[in-house]
């Protein structure tokens, strides 16, 4: 969705975190609220220095991560493209408001630069241990989009994609990075704004008295005007009817929640993003995401040199889990290898969708160290 159409733009030598800032500004983000936390603070610092220089950009440092999410939701209701960035402990604090964002269908982006946990854990070391929290962290059944990026250029592109998905589907989108990706400095190209497709939330075209803020539509995504535009309506975290008023009627509750799932599920094929590298004839495929995918890419190349028919499925969308990408591997691939810097959170998804076609091998590290190409190669060569 957010691939540059042509090679143009300026080259910079940037951190992954700085690439997120570039991507957000390209996507039209004009509001940032946050609270400092390692290893995500560079995103906040970048926004603090850049946003006041834009025509309408607002930056505010809030008193904690709960308040940051509240301000982002307020900004989203007021019509802004808004974001925050955080890391593990701050992400935990945001969970209640993430559920509120899902319930009121507020487009917004949360970047979580994952560090070692649980609790204060390893603030300066990488991990990928918030994957299931990103999907299921807030209480109640809800649908949410979770993305990931593995290098600095991808940090920029996936930030734009995150905003586009948020606007298109009226939903919070979580971009999971890890400490390595956010703190790696590489040369990247910042494309010109016209080389990306930039999406904006649908605006109502009907007169205010006809507008129903949570109406059933074919796409499942009702239009969303900014506060103050004449479309006065009620926003609540309670289960609500199509007008936004609280309801306890079973038929209205089920219609609301089913639509909120459907609006994402029915666009599954547009949302599932993954790079397939040498998978066409692969007999053993690594399923990886984030910085580990870079180790995996090298391991796959080395395995090919040694005659192993290896491939890499690099996940960019983590949720909804891109299951059909796996299904396509089934005719030739017998083994999946899932390396990740946690105790097995994404391999759990892989095993969930696996209906016996694959043997699943896992590689897990939780010691604050990256999984090396050698470790993955060893598993690829074990037949």
């Amino acid at each position: 969705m957010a691939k540059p159409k042509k090679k143009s733009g300026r080259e910079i030598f940037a951190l992954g975190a700085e690439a997120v800032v570039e991507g957000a500004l390209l996507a039209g983000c004009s509001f940032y609220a946050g609270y400092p936390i390692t290893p995500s603070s560079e995103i906040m610092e970048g926004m603090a220095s850049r946003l006041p220089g834009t025509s309408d950009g607002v930056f505010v440092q809030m008193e904690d991560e709960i308040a940051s999410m509240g301000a982002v939701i307020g900004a989203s209701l007021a019509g802004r493209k808004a974001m925050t960035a955080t890391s593990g402990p701050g992400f935990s604090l945001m969970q209640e408001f993430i559920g509120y964002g899902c319930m009121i269908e507020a487009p917004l982006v949360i970047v979580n630069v994952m560090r070692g946990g649980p609790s204060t854990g390893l603030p300066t070391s990488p991990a990928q241990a918030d994957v299931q929290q990103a999907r299921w962290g807030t209480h109640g059944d809800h649908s949410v989009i979770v993305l990931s990026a593995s290098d600095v250029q991808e940090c920029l592109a996936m930030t734009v994609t995150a905003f586009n998905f948020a606007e298109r589907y009226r939903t919070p989108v979580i971009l999971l990075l890890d400490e390595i990706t956010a703190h790696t400095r590489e040369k990247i190209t910042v494309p010109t704004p016209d080389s990306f497709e930039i999406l904006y939330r649908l605006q109502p075209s009907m007169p205010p008295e006809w507008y129903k803020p949570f109406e059933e539509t074919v796409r499942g995504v009702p239009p969303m005007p900014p506060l103050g535009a004449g479309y006065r309506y009620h926003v609540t975290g309670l289960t609500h009817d199509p007008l936004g008023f609280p309801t306890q009627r079973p038929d209205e509750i089920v219609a609301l929640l089913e639509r909120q799932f459907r609006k994402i599920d029915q666009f599954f094929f547009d949302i599932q993003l993954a790079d397939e590298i040498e998978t066409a004839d692969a007999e053993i495929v690594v399923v990886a995401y984030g910085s580990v995918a870079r180790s995996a890419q090298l391991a796959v190349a080395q395995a090919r040199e040694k005659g192993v028919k290896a491939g890499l499925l690099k996940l960019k969308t983590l949720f909804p889990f891109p299951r059909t990408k796996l299904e396509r591997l089934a005719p030739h691939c017998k083994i999946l290898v899932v390396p990740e810097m946690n105790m097995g959170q994404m391999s759990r998804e892989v095993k969930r969708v696996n209906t016996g076609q694959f043997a699943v091998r896992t590689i897990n590290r939780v010691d604050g160290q990256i999984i090396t190409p050698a470790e993955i190669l060893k598993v690829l060569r074990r037949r």
Partner: protein
Amino acid sequence: MAERTQLIHHYLRHNKKFPHVYCAGCGHGIALGSLIRSVHALGWSKDEVVMVAGIGCSGRMAVYVDFNTVHAVHGRALTIATGIKLSNPNLKVIVVMGDGDALSIGGNHFIHAARRNIGLSVLVLNNNIYGMTGGQCSSTTPLGATTTTTPFGQMEKSFDLVELAAAAGANYVARASAFHAQGMDKLMQATFTHRGFSLLEVVSPCHTQYGRKNKFKTVVDMYRWLKESATPLEQYRKLSAEKAKGRIPLGVFVDRDEPSLEERYADLRADQTAQAGRR
């Protein structure tokens, strides 16, 4: 009467199923009436008013009024309101919270919003109790009071909302009572039009959950107590410590004219844009 009916039809939502949740004798309805009269007196259009409310009895107010209304999560109304006001400073953002909402679960947001001096009109309807959840003690429940979670009497001291907001840096701080509706109207209008963070505490009796358990036989007893203990601030300040005990001072406690955060931010942005133009 006819005028009042017109106000009701204009400002309350006709498509929302009434009756409201407020019990007989609740002070919140009086505050709601004052709010509507104040918005009307100021001549604001309904489209430019945003009401952000928390959770609890006071939080339900947002659903009844025909403004842009946001019913937040518990304790966080001020954070959402901050995002709205910074995004669009032209909107008139009114925040309605209860004492549990503003001072217990949302206490941190309360002092920081006041410190930030963000241009919000904040109403705290203080009934000294968690009404909706069944009468548990809050951080403004008086020492010794009986509630469902302090069956042997409240052992903790309570917050003084006015002192807290003043110390935290609010531009305008006032207190009104549900018994003195006309006085409330005046203070409410001043709160709505004052620059920066403006707080109005409304002492709002809850007979159902608080009064019944604390020796107020009837609703009327509660209002009689409020009438007798409320004292204009000027008079209150002249009273000896002994005589002031148990009295509730009403009036304007803080009236400062410091620039609000959104004004400072607009200055910064103008400055930055001008610099970018010179480069």
